[in-house]
């Protein structure tokens, strides 16, 4: 026999009882996942030896700022170009058939070593033309042209 009432006295669990319940819950979880935890802790130990944990903690705690700086830093035309060209290059590389290029690569390697020798010899020639760096460039260009020429010749003969 009762009037309408609205007051509710909440069941209060004292701190000690709540702690006991929380510990019991954690204890159960630990026991259930014992093997996984052992592996995980081992892995964490290795990372910690390398200072990885401290770095990771800093990265996460300053995550917003880091992301902000990072994004703003790379939001520049040159950064975008680097990324774009990098992606394009990856795409191009992905289309090359490297096994077909084997003989060409070998020839390129031998041309490079020849060019290197030329470069060393011509150092004195450069010196003869009084250290004109343009000459070195000519040499590199000549070596490059030789490379290209030889590469062309190699492809032609391989067909």
């Amino acid at each position, binding site marked *: 026999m*009762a009037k309408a009432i609205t007051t509710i006295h909440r069941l209060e669990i004292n701190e000690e009882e709540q702690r006991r319940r929380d510990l019991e819950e954690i204890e159960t979880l630990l026991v259930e996942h014992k093997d996984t935890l052992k592996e995980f802790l081992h892995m964490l130990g290795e990372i910690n030896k390398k200072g990885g944990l401290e770095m990771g903690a800093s990265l996460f705690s300053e995550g917003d700022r880091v992301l902000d700086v990072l994004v703003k830093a790379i*939001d520049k035309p040159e950064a975008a170009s680097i*990324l774009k060209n990098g992606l394009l290059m990856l795409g191009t590389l992905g289309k090359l058939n490297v096994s077909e290029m084997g003989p060409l690569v070998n020839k390129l390697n031998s041309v490079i070593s020849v060019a290197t020798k030329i470069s060393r010899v011509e150092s004195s020639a450069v010196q003869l033309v009084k250290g004109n760096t343009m000459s070195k460039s000519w040499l590199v260009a000549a070596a490059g042209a030789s490379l290209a020429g030889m590469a062309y010749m190699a492809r032609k003969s391989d067909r």
Partner: protein
Amino acid sequence: MTEYVGIKVNGHAMSIPGDVSVMQALKEQAIDIPSVCYHPALGAIETCDTCIVEVNGEFVRSCSTMIQDGDVIDAVSPDVKQAQEIAMNRILYNHELYCTVCDYNNGRCEVHNTVKQMKIEHQSEPFTPKPHEIDNSNPFYRYDPDQCILCGRCVEACQDVQVTETLSIDWSLKRPRVIWDKHSTINESSCVSCGHCSTVCPCNAMMEKGMEGEAGFLTGIKKPTLRPMIELTKNVETGYSSILAISDVEAAMRESRIKKTKTVCTYCGVGCSFDVWTKDRKILKVEPQMEAPANGISTCIKGKFGWDFVNSEERLTKPLIREGDSFREAEWEEALALIEGKFREAKDTYGPDSMAFISSSKCTNEESYLMQKLARGVIGTNNVDNCSRYCQTPATVGLFRTVGYGGDSGSITDIEQAELVIVVGSNTSESHPVLATRVKRSHKLKGQKLIVSDLRKHEMADRADLFIQPRAGTDLVWLSAVTKYIVEQGWADESFLSNRVNGLDDYVKSLEKYTMEYAEQVTGLPKEMMIQVAEAVHEADTTSVLWAMGVTQHSGGSDTSTAISNLLLITGNYGKPGAGSYPLRGHNNVQGASDFGSMPDRFPGYEKVADDAVRAKYEKGWGVKIPADPGLNNHEMVSGIHAGDVKVMYLKGEDMGLVDSNLNYVHEAFEKLDFFVVQDIFLSKTAQYADVVLPAAPSFEKEGTFTNTERRIQRLYQVFEPLGDSKPDWQIIMEVANRLGAGWTYNHPSEIMAEAASLMPLYAGVTYDRLSGYNSLQWPVASDGTDSPLLFLDEFPFPDGKARLFPVEWTKPLEYEEEYDLHVNNGRLLEHFHEGNMTYKSKGITSKTPSVFLEVSPELAAERGLEDGTVVRLTSPHGSVKVPCLVTDRVKGKEVYLPMNDSDEGAINYLTSSHADKDTDTPAYKEISAKMEILKTKGDSPLPRINSRNGDPQPQIGVQVEKKWARPDYIFPGDLVKKGVGQRG
């Protein structure tokens, strides 16, 4: 019979059914063509142009071009591809693509998917921002013009599916955008927040706020950081295929953190079903599905956005035990032990009939079954009832009398296709919003005729071809007069009557007094108007009558419902698609609560308790003895408490202390109970009187089934674990029963349904397997699973298979002393569900409708000096309410309207009496008169400016794409290709 036509597609000849569009024909042949604006629920919109193909050498939009015999279709030529790409580039010009950091990147974005499908690597013109701000004003969804591709789906949905007619596209702007009303903000417009626009939007332009920052792994990034990320992504893009691949990965990853669960709405009787997207305990959005049988993609404000109550801090999470003048939280063991002791004591001391059980029209079928099993099988009493007595029982009785089944005779699709719909005493667009959209759409677009009979000029009345306003409580008279007129004109369906109906002669004789003159005098309706109704019924091949509380909540509610059914029988409007009787069930499970025997005189399946054979069946099935005498209904229980016969009550999922009539009388009864157990999700008004309150779980936190107004049984799946220590009602009832020695061992609601189905023929073939996903069954369901979408096709469920005309007499409504000079009509409101126990927990809904208000007419306002915000006291012989006024022409003269959304001083049932329908004890809620006293002349309007009723809708048909085509900057992509121009211009 569909005719087949011969066509050629991409060089291959084929023969296909001819009544399809080119797009449909191609899709059926698994030919991949793009489309962005097309949506199966909306039809062809023709704004995106991406679906262009060549038909007989001409470029056409495949969505809106119908197949004809001999067509030669090319969907793959370079020219076709070019035209499609031009269209897609125009879309990308309007939409900034940043999928990986977009909240809508969930695999369903049409822009993303179509770019991928078309293998577009770069857009020909870059996106440029539009000169329009994001509109964040609405509490539930936002519009971002920079993402809007102007597909018009939202406009189409708002204009022609929901038919609130708020949205349009302003094609006259340099950069067009979607607008609300005439360029209002969303929140100050006529938008009713039904959610259709955000549901159909193909991208993230129109999006639910629950998704923002929550849906993706990278979407919660702050704007200052997000903008450079977007710019970087766009600058780096080597091609969209690489970007989209990354976003596809991210979209796939989201599947692991976003749970999508199918459920059935817990609000009204339409029975909308949809997926709920959740992340941990957060509700991200409600996502309707095309396959949802009752509603498809449709929702209303409550179903789409009204779920805050599930996680409300006010949820009960522990049992409460009364101690002095407060409750204290307790553990389940203590609460159940107390209940066991008190129940045993009452049963042993006073007998089983001293106990009463109230089941719920909100809880599941399985829970209703268990409550009546507890009452009958464990306690030994038939004192069990539920709140459908407050509303729908008269309609059920009216139908049982005439056609043998107490449920809607067809489906919502039948209402949709009826040639004539008559709505009597139903505010359908606010009480059954999604169902009303079908009527509004058919009326707007398909020539459906609409007649409305109501005291109040609500939205359906506004739209009606004929709106009649008879005096309160006189519907039976005009219905009978119309029927008599039809018979006299020779318009009765003679063949139907002679083959399928009994009792014609007696019935026609009973109509003698219902002359037009008599009807005119009683109803106040001119006879010409009633003749118009008769003519409309005669001219329509199919008539569906929808009715609700304006009919049932009267002294003669059962008889008026019977009169409706009589009219339908006389005119042969049963047993054919598009015709029939549709009492619109209020709660999500009114139908189910009654189906499952939460009634004092009926077992599940409506078989009578007094029938020895039926009782024996249940006694055998349950292994118990069951009393033979019908018990008390909820009205009689209240009287029984006052008389000292009923000592103990166990009530679940209902706020009887607010929704029963004559509240002062009901509250006094509660105070007299020896022991009162209330089981609910909140501390409701009723629960405040309890000795023990048990914390229950709402629909999101349990499995089960609901049965909607179409007799459609649908499954709900569990979204969340019960909050705190709350439990699903079926588990609680089982624990109570087992404390009393029941020995029940149900592990899952499917077992309860299996038991019920084995005992009740109506649900014989219902199993959870047959209801999996979006499957549903409409009873009766035979044991092989065959269900009955349309009743009475071959026969009526009477021994001779024939229906029965049932003579009825008009019952005069209650009359009051002269001082009670205002008639107080009452009912629902769109935004709040009943008293608002659940909906007031939504900040958004509360912001739109913060309180109850009394609608008063301009005439009454002028006479009494009332204005918006004037606070008045209404007093009836039974009590009084205090409420602010709203002056509106929805009511006239001395009719006022008080909606139900208050649980305090403005609660309507402080005014209502215990007077009831003579056949069912349904309270005559609509028969109240009161006197008015002004308490405070000036005040704030109870309806804030941002309520949709203050908006200014702009009706039109669809998105008016012709206006887009007429723009000087628009050229059909097909024409550009012909000209040899490769880009927009």
